[in-house]
């Protein structure tokens, strides 16, 4: 394995990545294709401050002072035309980093990959692998992470009855070895102060 071959291989990989970006992100933008709600490859979430536009108030969940329960915080979030769009706005804001004194139970670096809502009102929230790989562990801590997502949707969107968390596009058994994520979970406010 020479350094020349490594160079060739990495430039090929970079070229492939650029082509993929062009086909899946650049081209649709060029043609102004609307974002569909059923595509697996959702647009990357933004962490920028809220752009101007219509806003609604929603409840977001963060770790309480005692570390044992979540607290609900009312914040403005961009209005979404449909349940799915509203759900995306809420999750994007819920998983974004927050400043003290708020503490988020969502592992840093977690991004929203995709979000769907089934006809039965079950939301599937597909998050990047940091949701699992950067999780600090602990059963209670993991419960707070999971119910941050579950409650953020079920408490704000009447049309969403249950939430299943997916990681990196796949169903997972647990995030860090404790909470069963094989089924959609219903709202549980017992984890909220």
């Amino acid at each position, binding site marked *: 394995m020479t350094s020349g071959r490594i160079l060739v291989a990495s430039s090929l990989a970079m070229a492939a990545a650029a082509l993929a970006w062009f086909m899946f992100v650049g081209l649709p933008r060029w043609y102004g294709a609307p974002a569909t709600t059923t595509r697996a490859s959702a647009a990357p979430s933004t962490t920028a401050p809220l752009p101007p536009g219509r806003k609604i108030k929603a409840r977001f969940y963060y*770790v*309480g*002072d*005692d*570390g*044992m*329960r979540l607290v609900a915080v009312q914040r403005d979030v961009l209005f979404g035309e449909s349940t799915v769009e509203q759900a995306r706005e809420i999750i994007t804001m819920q998983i974004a980093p927050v400043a003290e004194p708020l*503490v*988020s*139970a969502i592992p840093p670096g977690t991004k929203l990959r995709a979000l769907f809502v089934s006809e039965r009102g079950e939301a599937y929230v597909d998050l990047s692998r940091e949701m699992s790989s950067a999780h*600090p*562990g*602990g*059963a*209670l*801590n993991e*419960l707070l992470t999971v119910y941050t997502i579950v409650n953020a949707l079920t408490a704000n969107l009447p049309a969403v009855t*249950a939430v299943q968390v997916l990681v990196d596009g796949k169903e997972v*058994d*647990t995030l*860090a*070895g*404790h*909470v*069963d994520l*094989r*089924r959609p*979970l*219903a709202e549980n406010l*017992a984890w909220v102060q």
Partner: protein
Amino acid sequence: MKLRSLAPILLLVYGLAEPLNFARGGQTPPPAPSAPSPSPLTLLSKEGRRPIPVTVIGDQEFVALDELASIFQLTVREDSLGAITVSYKRKTIVLTPDQALASVSGKLISLPAAPLDDARGRAGRRHWLVPVEFISRALSAVYDAKLELRKPSHLLIAGDVRVPRVLIRYEIAGNGARLTIDATPRANSTVSQENDRLSIKFDADALDVALPTIQPQGLVLGIRLADPVTLAADLGPRFAAFRASTLPMDASARLTIDIVATQTEAAAPTPTPSAAPAPPPDLSAIGQAASSIRTIAVDAGHGGEDEGAKGAGGTKEKDLTLAVARRLKTAIETRLGIRVLLTRDEDKNIPIDDRAAMANNNKADLFISLHAGASLRPRTAGASIFYAAFDKDAEDQARASLGTERLPTFSGGQRDIELLLWDLAQIRHLDRSAELARILEREFHDRIPLSAHAIDRAPLRVLESANMPAVIVEMGCLTNADQEKQLTGNDFQSTLVQALADAVVKFRGYLETQP
């Protein structure tokens, strides 16, 4: 909220402004000749032992503040607004008559009940009764010497006094019998025979012991306290000889005395288990073949590349859970004679479903999964106990199908139904798992720091397929630096293992009262 937290401070200021000194002189009065009906606290110190009378009101035990003042040289002042200031040297405790709170050197602590005015037959100034927990939660924080309240045994230990807890078990083994005596912390003992009694003398200042009731069958007639540090076992006519051996175990010293019966007598009639319908924790039943718990699955959480939570000082959850699981296995197998199956006995990652499967396939009667917590708030501390929760739909489905032998009839093949039931195997055990959690909480109380939410229900994967009562015990929070140190310490682990083993005994007792 604000007003409430300020109240003790305001009262303290008033207390200082209008002092009314009611403290007695330095002379310690002799104990009251007529002891009150509830058993008194026994104060053990280098000076000896003395009773502190206890008054029970409702379910709560109270002691007289004046009594504590005279023993511990406290000054008690009461102001016109009712605040009671207890001073010791330059430290103060402020109590408020209608509040179950106290301010100890400016820090608020809670009490199980508010102080009460004991006005019985006395005129003049008020005589305050305070909950016994005042001693462990408030007084011990300001007192110079160590104060240890052992509520179950009604002992108050002051200063550096050696008072081991002594656990006695008596088992019939074949034609003979065995006495197992554990002393924690470790205390040496010597055994000698004097005529028809065996004396077991401990190298200690006093003993904290609950004496077992023994059904006499000619070997040992009873066990009593001959003096504060000596146990006496009265021997019956069938006694021939004894053999004693000692073994250090964790923080305990175990003394085993095998008692040999004379060969000429016929075997003693075995006691009928149905004779006593609801005995208190019957330690003599331990080791009998018909126990309701024969195998316990102990699951050391995480392992291998799955390290679990990490402590601030670098402790890995996977190492802690394995260390405690091994200790628990030794303790349960040797003390209780119950087989323990470890889901892992090495640093290896076991898939989560295989852990419950191992317990199911080995027909374990109990599943205890050991974990340690992590929190994003560094102050979070304390142990939590979890048992399984299912969505209501799943519970309804499973319960409906459990009543009969028929398979559920919702759409989908038979294979799906079997998978569903395997995943939901825990549902039929939920009530008993909840009881196990409650027993654990009671056994941990006063021994292991508990979190503010000591028992929680949650959809926890490892519990859901367990086909037996099952709990997760989060032993404490590794992200709290103090607790991390505690969790990795020998003393804490021994106490935890002892509490878990005691909970197993209690849970077995509970199972035996169930139809």
